[in-house]
């Protein structure tokens, strides 16, 4: 097993909560803050913290709008986020492949 494969894993995505958010956003053009919070059973604070970290890394874009006079926050993956997520998944697959070849 090459330890360098593990070292190449993106530390920002690697965290459990952020990986969950990235996974959900990868399967959908956009998701509301409420949807993420409900499906992942996270607190508002947790989701906000993770989204902020992903936003700072340029992986997630956040849009604020109004729907029926109520604020609506939606999140989506940026092209950089999509690329980083694909690379992360590819690395995981490589790690599994390596372990099978051993």
């Amino acid at each position: 097993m090459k330890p360098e494969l593990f070292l190449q894993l993106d530390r920002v995505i690697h965290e459990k909560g952020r990986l969950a958010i990235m996974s959900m956003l990868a399967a959908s053009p956009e998701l509301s803050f409420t949807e993420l919070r409900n499906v992942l059973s996270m607190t508002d604070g947790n989701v906000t913290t993770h989204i902020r970290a992903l936003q700072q890394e340029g992986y997630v874009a956040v849009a604020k709008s109004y729907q029926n006079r109520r604020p609506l926050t939606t999140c989506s993956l940026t092209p950089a986020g999509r690329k980083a997520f694909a690379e992360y998944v590819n690395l995981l697959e490589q790690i599994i492949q390596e372990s099978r070849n051993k």
Partner: protein
Amino acid sequence: MDPKWAADNLQTIRTLMERSAVYRRALAPVMIFIGVIGLAGSVAGWRGGFESPRAFVFYWFAIAAGVLIGSFLLIRLQALRDNEPFWSPPTRRMAQAITPPLIAGFVSGLVVVLANRLAPDPANWPVGQMSAAQQTHLLPIVWGILYGCALYSAGFFMPRGMKVFGFAIVLISLLALAPGPQNPATASIPAGHALMGFIFGICHLAYGAYLYLTEKGKNAA
């Protein structure tokens, strides 16, 4: 590091991606609503004298329109309550899945109406060769099969129970062929209304009750 961890992580990613694409609105109120309207419509149709194929088709079209509007409002209310967009990607996928069979059902009803209206000589139209009783007895079976197919297709983007329910509706509709609606001696117009009541009323009420007892917590689409 244990490579099993990588496989577990990939599995988690896959599960979450699937969950993200799944339609998750609470369906119990919608199913119960469809069931109540379907059952009431069946009883009213039986007693109301909608006995020509044309009256039968338009009567059930009107009920279907009411059910569609009511279901739309129920789902919209949920979206408003949860402060979420109504036309979400899962909702769009689900709508795309159910639309073709529903259109086919609508067209099959129109074909029956037109066949009875445009062909004074029934020999020119296959559907016109059947009596009014046969047509109104067979139509719910066709609608049931198509509706079941619609639910089965939608089930790919919904919780697993929907696929089973769609398949059950198809099977029940096929079983309804057994008494022989194609036989003029056994076909009857009240049986058409009763079939509609069973497929769109009782079956939906039963599934709605099951969902009501099993759906937990908040749902979002």
